[in-house]
């Protein structure tokens, strides 16, 4: 398993850098991931999306459909890519500390 240092601690991550121990997540981890992708400040919009993703994941065991994410947050796909450079799956899910979506998606 690969290791990654985030906000001063070392965590187990997969080879795409996704946190493997989702329960260890905290807001500093989200900020550290964002910084790695060049986003130095997390705005209220970022947190709206991150918190929704994370709560949906904890409740349902998977990430929400992008269509649902768009409807609930009110951000269209373009806006989501502005907020999360690699997009909702590869950035937003990663910053929210939930595993990379799997299966035929």
């Amino acid at each position, binding site marked *: 398993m*690969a290791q990654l240092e985030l906000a001063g601690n070392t965590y187990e991550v997969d*080879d*795409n850098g996704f946190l493997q121990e989702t329960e260890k997540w905290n807001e500093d981890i989200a900020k550290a991931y964002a910084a790695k992708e060049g986003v130095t400040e997390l705005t209220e919009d970022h947190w709206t999306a991150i918190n929704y993703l994370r709560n949906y994941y904890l409740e*349902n*065991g*998977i990430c929400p*459909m*992008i*269509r*649902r994410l*768009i*409807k609930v947050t009110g951000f*269209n*796909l373009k806006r989501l890519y502005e907020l999360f450079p690699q997009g909702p799956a590869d950035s937003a899910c990663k910053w929210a500390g939930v595993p990379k*979506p*799997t*299966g*035929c*998606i």
Partner: protein
Amino acid sequence: MKKNLKLTDFSKDGDTQLTEVNVDELIPLPPPYDKVEELPGWKRITEDQKERLVCNLNGFVALSLPKPQNKEEEKRYVEQFVSGLKKLLSWENNWTFLQPLLLSLDYCAQCQTCNDACPIYLASSKNDLYRPTFRAEVFRRLVNKYVKPGGKLRAKLNKRDIELNWTTISRLYELSYRCNLCRRCAQSCPMGVDNALITRELRKLFSQELGWAPKELHEKGTVLQLEVGSPTGMKPHVVKDNVEFLDEDFTDITGVEVSTPWDREGADVLLIHSAGDILSWPESPVAFAILCNAAGISWTLSSEVPGYDGVNYGLFYDDVQLAKIATKHAQIAKKLKVKKIVMGECGHQHKAFMAVSDRLLTGDLNIPRESVMTFLENLAFSGKIKFDPSKNDFPVTLHDPCNIVRNLGIVEPQRRILRYLCPQFREMTPHGVENYCCGGGGGLSMMSQTNFTDWKVNVAGRIKFKQILEAFSDQPGPEVKKYICAPCLNCKMQFRDLLAYYGAWEKSGITYGGLAELIVNAMVDIKKPFIEWEEY
């Protein structure tokens, strides 16, 4: 680095990469994709990955196999491999595939005809590593040496000996995932030898004997599907909730009431989508709901684990997992007392459930199973739905999913629909049973560890991308929007990666989607265009 490999190189220099991919040596793409410096290039294996993982094949890593701790561990795996070889060649352990395996091992005349049929070998500008006969011949020599009586002595005498060691098996493992199992090689073989079958048997040996399988196909694939219902992780209440959400959302968007029946006993049709469509390409299941309802079909989806996800990754690597999933699907249909099962737009689901499972599902589990292609054709020509083909007046080409077209011979129904509803439909060259794989076949489209996606878009999908560009070469600019009709979820996943990598939407106006969406887009009753060109 060497492009011309000897078979005996395969077991030498354990930690060293055997060959490499050099972008200048790959077959050229048409402009504007011919300028290598304008493309994103690819990720290199990092030093940390080289420390931890087996990286001894071609500079790409699909499987992230951890390096063994010591020589004993290596030795144990090699012994397990030999035991697996013996099982593959025995009736008791491999009654399903023994006969075609033996025929393919015995009848290869080494004429090398199949090599020129392989899109991966061709795209690589003929790097020996990807010859369909290279992998198969390594395997054949190991079988001859370790399974046949007197094999070790014969191998020594005729100097064609391939040493069996950790290097050999770890490279073979990676190499068995450098093939799309598209079976274009088998189609071209004058003797009927099936090198894709040999590749798949190798994967099976690794999975069933050594416990080695790609995480995406096993742990996050079949295991998750059997446990919660779907490799996407969707549990029954989540899938129902998602589809309900889509029904409402698309009722608003289309102005037509979209509704989906669940678990209706005695329905004529149990439709089994690939659940990834619900999450990532929701227009597809919605289009099916619109069409079934408009044509007055008695249909249902199932919310029982795993009846709402038709994928069966076992087809790619493991007979036991394949059988478990196929049996569950049939049992669910039996319980619902449906007249038939219709498989959604998913190629490997077709092959797993229509063809391979035929030997498994006997008696009252042998419920009629129909392809989505004839099902949609009957809907489109039923006379119950009004169409205006001028709504589809944009260039459309058709990608043939290997498992539906080459492997099952279902060629014309989808074409009759497109000729009827898409005035600018044009074929790729070649097409039909001669098609080229999208590059994601054989389970590869789900696999994206380390830098593997870069290999899929640069090598495996290269010829397909070239074909697509050529099919649209009369209107190459981005101002004309073009549609690749790809009626298979795994193919769509590969097209998403392929088109994004090359920037084909921005540079050429090329996008992709399924077949049902095109049919709905042409419906008179759907007032707004159903196909959204820009992503929402």
